[in-house]
């Protein structure tokens, strides 16, 4: 057992740290619209790519850095610790590229990978549908063969960055007669056609981070099938595994940052003649959050050790995502409790505490137990695949 970094890993961290300090573009433009933010992120991604930090998990032969899992973890943790912005093409880098690398043809690799890395082509993910959320395999969007093309009709939802995307990782039903997991195919759909329409979905924060996407006989060539017709489910699962493995360490750093801000909030909020940081009730809650974040961090290291030994992330990753959602929600709830009556004021209000940042975080974090696998579904996965309990279905 050794929880320290090796000298070469330390060296890597130093390199990451120094590069980020020297190249960090500062915070995203405040009060800017999403268009401006995306432009800012595109520029940042180009800079990352120029220095070889975009796609650090990708093999070198595909333009990545070929970093070890520990190095990926170090990079994610360090970038988040320094509050570096996200690159523009998050989904392309974390999911699209790895899927093309794992399942794509040589032609597909040559065509798609480079523009993902540069951020020139943004990617989005077309999985969920209005009637197929957790039960993803029940999805209804149809793809019908027409010569050497497929004609796609249906609707996707919760599609992040669809309005900026050139490519959509689309799972559609190609064989309605096959059992539901077997009739699916994974396509790369060109979003730049009239038969594809996107509409922003306004969420409870008032923002439109997500979209609905409508396909009305949209066209996708045979050449854009990934992993073979009928193999969509297996290909999609790879994507989801990549999403979870890549997120953990950045997410932990992000919570550590938030915990730091929470402690500061407690220390600056008057309470009973002292501050909230003197109040035994708040002290207990803050301590408990620190303990849980630390257990999450250590779990992630244990998981990483295991993954490095076995080569594939196990279903235990579901524990981390569940825990992350719980902690993030608790944390923002506690911030509002510390603010007391002032927690009723939101962004834009003169007397809002910390500019209303916690009110926003509280609302945004409601999605944490829904997005990327609901906590309820994660518990099913854990029960069935980790504990071996019988399936209800």
């Amino acid at each position: 057992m050794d929880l320290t970094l090796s000298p070469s890993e330390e060296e890597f961290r130093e390199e990451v740290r120094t590069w980020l300090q020297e190249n960090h573009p500062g915070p995203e433009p405040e009060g800017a619209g999403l268009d401006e933010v995306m432009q800012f992120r595109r520029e940042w991604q180009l800079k990352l790519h120029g220095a070889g930090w975009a796609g650090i998990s990708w093999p070198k032969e595909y333009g990545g850095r070929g970093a070890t899992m520990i190095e990926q973890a170090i990079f994610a943790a360090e970038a988040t610790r320094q509050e570096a912005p996200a690159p523009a093409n998050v989904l392309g880098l974390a999911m699209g590229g790895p899927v093309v690398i794992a399942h794509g043809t040589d032609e597909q690799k040559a065509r798609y990978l480079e523009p993902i890395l540069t951020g020139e082509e943004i990617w989005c993910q077309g999985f969920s549908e209005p009637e197929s959320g957790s039960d993803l395999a029940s999805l209804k969007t149809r793809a019908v063969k027409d010569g050497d093309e497929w004609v796609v009709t249906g609707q996707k939802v919760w599609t992040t960055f669809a309005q900026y995307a050139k490519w959509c990782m689309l799972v559609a039903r190609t064989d309605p007669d096959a059992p539901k997991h077997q009739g699916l195919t994974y396509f790369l759909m060109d979003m730049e056609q009239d038969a594809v329409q996107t509409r922003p979905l306004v969420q409870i924060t008032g923002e439109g981070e997500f979209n609905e996407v409508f396909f009305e006989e949209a066209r996708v060539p045979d050449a854009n099938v990934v992993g073979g017709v009928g193999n969509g489910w297996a290909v999609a699962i790879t994507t989801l595994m990549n999403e979870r493995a890549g997120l953990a360490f950045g997410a932990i750093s992000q919570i550590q940052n938030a915990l730091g801000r929470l402690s500061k909030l407690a220390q600056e909020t008057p309470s009973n003649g002292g501050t909230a940081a003197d109040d035994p009730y708040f002290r207990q809650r803050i301590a408990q959050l620190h303990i849980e974040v630390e257990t999450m961090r250590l779990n992630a290291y244990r998981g990483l050790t295991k993954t490095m030994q076995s080569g594939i992330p196990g279903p235990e990753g579901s524990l981390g995502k569940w825990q992350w959602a719980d902690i993030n929600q608790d944390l923002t709830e506690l911030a509002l409790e510390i603010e007391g009556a002032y927690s009723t004021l939101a962004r834009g209000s003169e007397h809002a505490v910390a500019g209303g940042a916690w009110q926003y975080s509280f609302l945004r974090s409601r999605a944490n137990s829904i997005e990327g696998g609901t906590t309820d579904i994660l518990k099913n996965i854990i029960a069935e695949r980790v504990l071996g309990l019988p399936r209800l279905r």
Partner: protein
Amino acid sequence: MYFDLTDEQQAIKQTAHDFLASRFKSERLREIAASDSGFDESGWKEMAELGWAGLALPEEWGGQGLGIVDLAVLFEELGYVCAPSPLLSNTIAGLALAFAGSDAQKERWLAPLALGELRGAPALIDAGVLAEPNKFALAAGSNGDGTVLSGEKTLVMDAASADFFLVATADGHRHVVEKGAEGVTVVPEESIDPTRRLSSVRLEDVRVAAENTLPGGTEDYWPVFQRACVALAAESTGLAQRSLEMSVSYAKDRQQFGRPIGAYQAVSHRCAQMLLETENSRSAVYGAAWAADAEPESLPLAASMAKAYASDAGWRVPDAAIQVHGGIGFTWEHDLHFFLKRGRANAATFGDAKWHRERVADAVLAGATAPADD
């Protein structure tokens, strides 16, 4: 970075697992729990032969010289069977002698203790006084060169099988007091956990020769206390692990409404929660155990995090297990109540979750970061 047991530690785990499974089957556990003293002499001898009495004690004084990670491995397995054994109290007494004793005291007390020939138990908490780690009320009266002790220590573990006590006094010292010394009376209490007995130790004008007072002061006992917390937290993790396994196996077997109850989400999600708490507890324990061996400056915070988490998980998981089992889980006949009781006792021993969280709050609100992260 490698967060897993080494091959040697896996071997310790396997040996402990196999030995304890055969030694503490349910019937034997119940016999010991129902016995007068609660002490299993033959089991102790076998554990001593395996080197467990001195597992994490210095080789120089007869111990195995292994680390706290190894100790945690052993205690997790002890918890897994809810082992009735004075190994915990004995280990803490040994660590106290190792950290705060003179060479002469180590030779006289630690060496036989590490071999399992003599058993020691800490006598810390003053009867009738609010129990707080490392804060004691008993006055050390002077008696020529030595000390005289009059008072009552309580919540003393394994007094029935102990040969000597390490009695804590208000001045921060500990004194070796033999159980048979004049003025010492042991009064068994009714502890909720029949597999780890608690007693009061009454001291009436007990004379302690100068050579039996350990030279170390309060500061020397914090590292002992932190290691004790890790061992106890490891034991609680083992209790949780076993309770989880019993529940999963029962939920696969037990049929209601024509299905195994584990197919119902009310049950399966409860089991998932039990797994989460058990794994978190394990991570916190091994993180702290590793700190004890490799990064002692981060041990105080890590030990408090581990003890706080395992204090909760160590009884909540067995408690959830009783719910999964339904009526049978509430019967004396089922073993789960032993796990619940031990978990509850562990939660309140060596600082409860609230006490340790306050230590964590102190550290993090003063600007300290999580251990080993920066």
